[in-house]
């Protein structure tokens, strides 16, 4: 970005002195936002840690009900989407608008695939009565607090899923603007900071997967 300020100024908002200042401000803003996201999910991770410390046997029992294969496939899908997202940023930096659009579309497709797999996982659970909180009716786990594990499971994966949906929305908007030729090597801030967001969504899942599915 070192030379960007002298190339294109049409996208510099009036209160910034140049494109460098605008780009680094946006990026710092996004990092701060990601930090708040970590704190936001952090509350749930703390709840997880505390209940696991109190009921270690419950967590090993309950985790066997989760489908490791689905989880593993989803992990691969999300890591793949992070790669294509990074490639979209690279394409913007090299003025390759066509590939920006293509990579973003692949990322959206992978994110949607993640949600589809998650949908099948959820419905399989719901059918046998594994629901959050008071609606929990499953009798396969012999533990009085079995419902609490699945409450935490649904809260964490549900909140993560919401972030995936928001990410898809952001990337659809990016595709529309990229098709209009809004992004090039001089200005690609929205692609870059959406990418940062998407990597965070990926990282949170990378923590969720072993914590939920791989307890043994």
């Amino acid at each position: 970005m070192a030379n960007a300020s002298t190339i294109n100024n049409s996208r510099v908002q009036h209160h910034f002195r140049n494109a460098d200042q605008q780009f680094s401000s946006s990026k710092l803003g996004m990092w701060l936002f990601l930090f708040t996201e970590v704190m936001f999910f952090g509350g749930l991770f703390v709840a997880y840690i505390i209940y696991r410390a109190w009921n270690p046997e419950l967590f090993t029992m309950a985790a066997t009900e989760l489908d490791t294969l689905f989880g593993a496939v989803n992990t691969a899908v999300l890591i793949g989407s992070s790669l294509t997202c990074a490639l979209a940023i690279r394409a913007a930096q090299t003025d390759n608008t066509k590939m920006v659009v293509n990579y973003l579309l692949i990322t959206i497709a992978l994110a949607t695939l993640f949600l589809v797999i998650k949908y099948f996982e959820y419905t399989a659970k719901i059918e046998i009565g594994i629901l959050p909180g008071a609606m929990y009716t499953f009798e396969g786990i012999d533990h009085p607090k079995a419902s609490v594990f699945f409450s935490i499971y649904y809260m964490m994966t549900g909140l993560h899923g919401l972030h995936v949906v928001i990410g898809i929305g952001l990337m659809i908007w990016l595709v529309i603007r990229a098709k209009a030729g809004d992004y090039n090597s001089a200005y690609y801030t929205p692609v870059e900071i959406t990418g940062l967001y998407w990597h965070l969504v990926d990282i949170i899942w990378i923590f969720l997967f072993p914590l939920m599915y791989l307890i043994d």
Partner: protein
Amino acid sequence: MEATTNGNGKTLKVRYFDIEENPETHYLNAEKGIKSWLFTVDHKRIGIMYLASIAFFFLIGGILALVLRTELLTPTENLMTAEQYNRVFTLHGAIMVFLFIIPSIPAALGNFLLPIMLGAKDVAFPRLNLASFWIYSIGALFTLASLAVNPIDTGWTFYTPYSVQTGSAVILMTFGVFIMGFSSILTGMNFIVTIHKLRAPGLTWGRMPLFLWAMYATSVIQVLATPVLAITLALLIMERTLGIGIFDPALGGDPVLYQHFFWFYSHPAVYIMIVPAFGVISELIGTFSRKTVFGYWAIAMSSLAIAFIGSLVWGHHMFVSGQSELSTVVFSFLTFFVGIPTGIKIFNWLATMHKGSIDMKTPMVYACMFLFLFTIGGVTGIMLGAISVNVHLHDTYYVVAHFHYVMMGGTVIAFLGGLHFWWPKMTGKMYNEFWGKIASAFIFVGFNLTFLPQFIMGSQGMPRRYYSYIEQFQTMHQLSTYGSYVLGVGFVIIAVYLAHSLVKGAQAPANPWGARSLDWMTSSPPDQHNFKYQPVVSNGAYDYHKPMADFTLGIAEDPAHHGHDDAVKVEAEKAEIR
């Protein structure tokens, strides 16, 4: 002065600029109509809208307080039933905390001043700033809706398990607070980025006004702690709707965990309330003592120290809630520890006043009042941090008096000082100095009359949040109630003369107090883009020994101030200048 370097080895051509007095166009009349306010991205207008909103909620919260005090005039029923009393004190607390005091200094004064003090045209993300105001408004609507539906009676802390069992509108209320949290987060992010990236040339960290250091520390806490409140309230809502069993003991949950989560935000939140007040006081004492602020770095760094240590003391709210003895001891120690940076500030302010040329204008009167009242509030806080004393005083009026001395005697008094101090800048009008001092006397007397008796009652065992009391406490309660009326009169006087000044006040000069920071180096009210030139800073914010002209430097022939259309040309010219 022809040229100066801005630290990066780049040379800037600078010259002196004259500050316009009585400008014809300024931010208040640059655009007209209600839409130009509601959809503005101008940080100054957003600050004014916040100011109007918090004034409205302060009025509501204040009326509720007077109603509560009137009910407590006698131990029997005066105005309302016990159940209504529970609702009123909950609303008083929730409105004052979430709708008034948290946005008070940061969102109202901070929004208005922060970019001007930095010599910037706006905050880093102006549209996000507007969004944050709208998010605040939507959250406030939810809160008001809960009032209409079924006012909540849980206390402002929403402790489980009662908040899960009560029939009142807990979900509406907590969802409103949840939404407002995002407003707070976005404002904090915006301010951090703005301070990092939009400082004027030459405005190094060591030259920033201390108000900006305080705002920086506050923003760090907002960004760090508020998301935890959000997830806590989200879990509470889930507990009520789905029965997830994390906080509700009937379902295998743990109410103490809720308290940990809640105070992990809400204790740092008291520093969101008080640290901006410290910033205001630094400005007031520096300006009206006509002296370089003593211990600049000590004051600046103690704000950050408070932000850091203050995030690790939440457990002192739970000494009798059943947390482990070890954590009680650790939290008690850390609570004492957080008193150190606060003490550093107080002593530095006193040292600034020492041998200063003190001008007792109304804002300075409030600053001195702050030193007195906040010190009482702070020291009683340290007493409450001692475990054995805490067990005796827990949930008594002593605690109520303590946090009112900090929140009202500290933050509200500093806010009033700041409001008077920057009133000429914000409105272009001077308030009435005579009535200003009369009102401050009412506030001081009324405040102490209201809350000093509560310390005494509390130490004798009067529990907080009680609808009735034994006769022994009646004199104290009545003193407190009469004090609250005096306090109310003081606020009415302020409202009247400030409103009067808008209509008939004298035109304010650009720098009525002879201050040196950038907020006074522009017209009153400021230009729509804050400055007619790009300021360059070559001195500290409190260098009163240097001539005023040294503070009005700006980039000579700055292309960036010619308008938006020739922005491209601008860059080419600038490249040559470099």
